[in-house]
Each structure stands twice: as C-alpha cells, then as structure tokens.
C-alpha cells in the first residue's frame, strides 16, 4: 500500500510541471506560434471569471444565509431518529449537509471536530473521509454552468446530490469497517 501511495504522490509532483513545460515544448516542436497561441487562449481568463460571478453570488449568498440562520441545528434534530436507523452518527449530519453546499464550511467543520474529538477518533476519520471523497456540488454547478451561461440545470442537481448522499453513507460504512 505504501509503495503505491509513494508512486502516486511521486507522479502527481510531475503532472503539473509536465503540463506547464510539456505543452509549450511540444508546441514548439510542432511549429505552433506558442506565444501567440498562449496569449490568444489566456485572453478568455478574464471573461470566464467575470461570467461566473452572478452564478457564484446567487449560490454562495443563499447558502451563507442558510448556515447563519441556525437551520442546521433544527435539521439535525429533526433527522436524528431517521439516521439512527441506517447507523449514521448524528454528530456527522452537519458535515453531510454542508459538504455539498460549502467547501470552506465543511473544512471548518473538520477542524472543529478535530478540536472536539481528537485526530484519531472514528468520528473525525469519518468526517475526513467525507471531506476528501467528494466535491462541493453547488460550487461546481455555479462555476461550470456559469462559465457557459447554463441556467436550466435539468438533472444535474439531483444527480449530484444523490451521489453526495451515497458518498456520505459509504464514508461512514467504510471507516466503520476498517477502524470500528
């Protein structure tokens, strides 16, 4: 396991430099006007960033309001009995809900739980796996769809949320299987 891990982390050191150096180098070999091409492509950086602002504002402010309202506490209390049935610890519910909504919020929750339970507690391990095994669905939707002006997202939200919910439950189960 350790050698596999070492190999993976070694490769990941090279991926970024390979892209940064390899693309222009290959371009030169292929006689592409690399500088001109680069500038031509990079021009879009500003437009794309500006284009996603309204989408990002819409998503982030709504989520921030929801978190500030204390709705999370009420939701945790309401869902507690249901979660007991599938063996999902109530302490992890805020994490499970926040994970799809806010990346910084869920990172803060991991920090919080480390302070509260210690790094080697099983709850913190579960929270860390939840954090590490999933992306912030609503952020991804805002950025990716915002960049091309997609407003009607069709089944993107339900698909993302189903996958998130599954990942949260699977995280709890795998950690319990390995460390429980």
């Amino acid at each position, binding site marked *: 396991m350790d050698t596999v891990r070492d190999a993976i982390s070694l490769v990941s050191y090279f991926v970024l430099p390979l892209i940064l150096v390899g693309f222009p180098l290959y371009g030169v070999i292929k006689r592409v006007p690399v500088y001109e091409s680069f500038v031509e492509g990079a021009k879009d950086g*500003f437009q794309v960033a500006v284009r996603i602002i309204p989408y990002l504002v819409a998503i982030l*402010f709504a989520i921030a309001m929801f978190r500030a309202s204390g709705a999370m506490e009420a939701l945790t209390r309401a869902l507690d009995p249901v979660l007991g049935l599938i063996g999902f610890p109530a302490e992890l519910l805020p994490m499970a809900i926040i994970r799809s909504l806010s990346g910084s919020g869920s990172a803060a929750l991991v920090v919080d739980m480390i302070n509260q339970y210690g790094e080697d507690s099983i709850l913190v391990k579960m929270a860390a796996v939840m954090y590490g095994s999933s992306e912030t669905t609503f952020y991804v939707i805002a950025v990716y769809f915002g960049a091309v002006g997609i407003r009607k997202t069709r089944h993107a939200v339900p698909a993302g949320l189903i996958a998130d919910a599954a990942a949260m439950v699977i995280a709890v189960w795998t950690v319990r299987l390995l460390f429980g």
Partner: protein
Amino acid sequence: MLNYIWAGLIVSSFLFALGYDIRDIHTDRYRNGEALPLALSFPQSYDPALRRVTVEIGVDSAGYAGFYGVSGGSAKRYTGYLLQSRAGIQIRFEKASAFPEPLATIAKVSRSRDEELQGTLTGPAPAAGAATANMGVVFEPVRFVKLNAIAGAALDFAKTAAEIALGLIGVLALFLGLLKIAEDAGIVFALVKLVRPILRPLFPEIPPDHPALGMIALNLTATLFGLGNAATPFGIKAMEELQTLNGSEDTATNSMVMLLAINTASLQLVPPVLLLALMGTQINTLIFPILTTTVLGLIVAIAAAKLLGRLPGYRASDPNRLPQA
C-alpha cells in the same frame, strides 16, 4: 430543481432565523434592559472627576448563570475602563475579551466605535477614593440577532463570491493559454483518440473526434492527481466545448450533466492538500477509505446522471433530443 432548492434555502433561512429570534425574545435570553451585577475594583482608586478610570471587572459565576439562565461557567475577570460624563457612567470592556454566551452575542451588538463591549452602569456611584464597588451594567437591547446575522451573511458572501471569481482570473488565463497551445499543437486531438474508448459510453452525444472529449480527459486527469487549480479551467473549457454541441443557449445537455456529476464525485488518487494539513500523519490510514468512497461515489454519480436522464421529464427537456417521429 435548482430554482426550488435556491428559493428553499432563502425562505427557510428567514423562517428559521425568525423562529429563533422569537424564541429568544420569548425566553428573554439577553435580559434586555436589566442590570448584570458586576464587582468592580479600581487599581488607582476611584476618582469621580476623571473622565476615564481604569477598572478591573469581576463577574461572579453563579450570578452570571442565574442572571442569564445558563448553566455553569467559571468566574471571569476582565479589564476595561469607565467613561464618565454628566449623563452617567459608561463601562467598556477591553477589546477582544473572550466572553461566554450570551454575553458574546451581546458584545457584537452593544459595542463602542472601537469594538469594545460597552454598557451603562446603574446603581449608586462609588465614593471618591474607593477601591471597589458593586454595580450593575445595562447593555444595549439585543433583538433579532439571527435576522441580522442572515442579512450580514448574505452581504459578506456576495462579496466573497466576487472575490473568488476574480481570484480565478490568473489561474484561468494560465491554463486556458496552455490549452490553446495544446489545441493548436494537436495534443488535444491525440488525447481524444486515446480516451475515446473509455469516455464514449459516458458521453454518447459527443461526436467521436470532437475536442470536448480531450478537454474532459484533461479535466479528469487533473482531478485524479489532486490538481484542483488546473482541473477547474480544464473543466470550464470542456463545458465550453460541450456548449458548441448544444442546440440551446441556457439548458444543460446530458453530457454536461454527466461531466458535472463526475466532477462532483471528484475521483482523486491524492487526498486534498487541506486534509493533509489538517490530519497530519493520520492521513496515511485514510487514503484507502477515501479512495473506496470516491470510487463508489463516482459509480453512483454516473448511474444517477444516466438514469435520471431517462426520466420522461428530463428527457423532454433535453435540448439535443431528436424531433418527435
């Protein structure tokens, strides 16, 4: 769906905030208008003629707990000063003192221009030259804390959102520039040929030689190696390529939903750097469960995107659906 979730977040945050605030008013959580007993002592003895008097403030734990109806808490000592005027004596606690709840919340409302907790002293003024005095303090009334909080959060995060987006400009420009070179040099095209057998079944709508497949492959590779900075521009570029195949301006195609679902599941071999920083060496034991979870999550994501796309409602809204025969 997003419309309802979005409106739901906003409306429910208002309702919850209002509910909590009404409960606080009902239980008189902040004891508005009533005096919290304080034990004051004056290091330089009290002088009624001075405008500003340094003071040590003692809060008795039982008195505090009884006054606010909270449990436990040890006795607290704070430093601060008195501001005396004809209108009365103001007390200010030193800036950034650590207060227990609910005083911490009161400190956010009843504060001076210099962000100190301030209140008005009540009771008989201490005698000149006194070393100690027992007085009460009345803070500014605290009402509708949560309603204020949600409004504040909305404004804060509107700003944060713009900062995040503008912060992306440089990295976006860098990788979009590199991608343009990759396109012109034929790297993307070569990549398309390489990944076609794997990605074709997931994205049947994309023509076999379309550069979108190459961009998707770059996006997934970057994610796989934990390069979030690079993955986002590649993903955006992939979306732009998919948009060229989209018959509609503002409606997501099945391929877009699939790309998004794969990205939210975020299959990565290396755990996020932040988690590494937080968990330290513990991370070694977590690599395997993280990998298992993310692979299973990815399978669920792909299945969900595929199956939901077959539902009649989503099928009807597909911008690339064939005209009815």
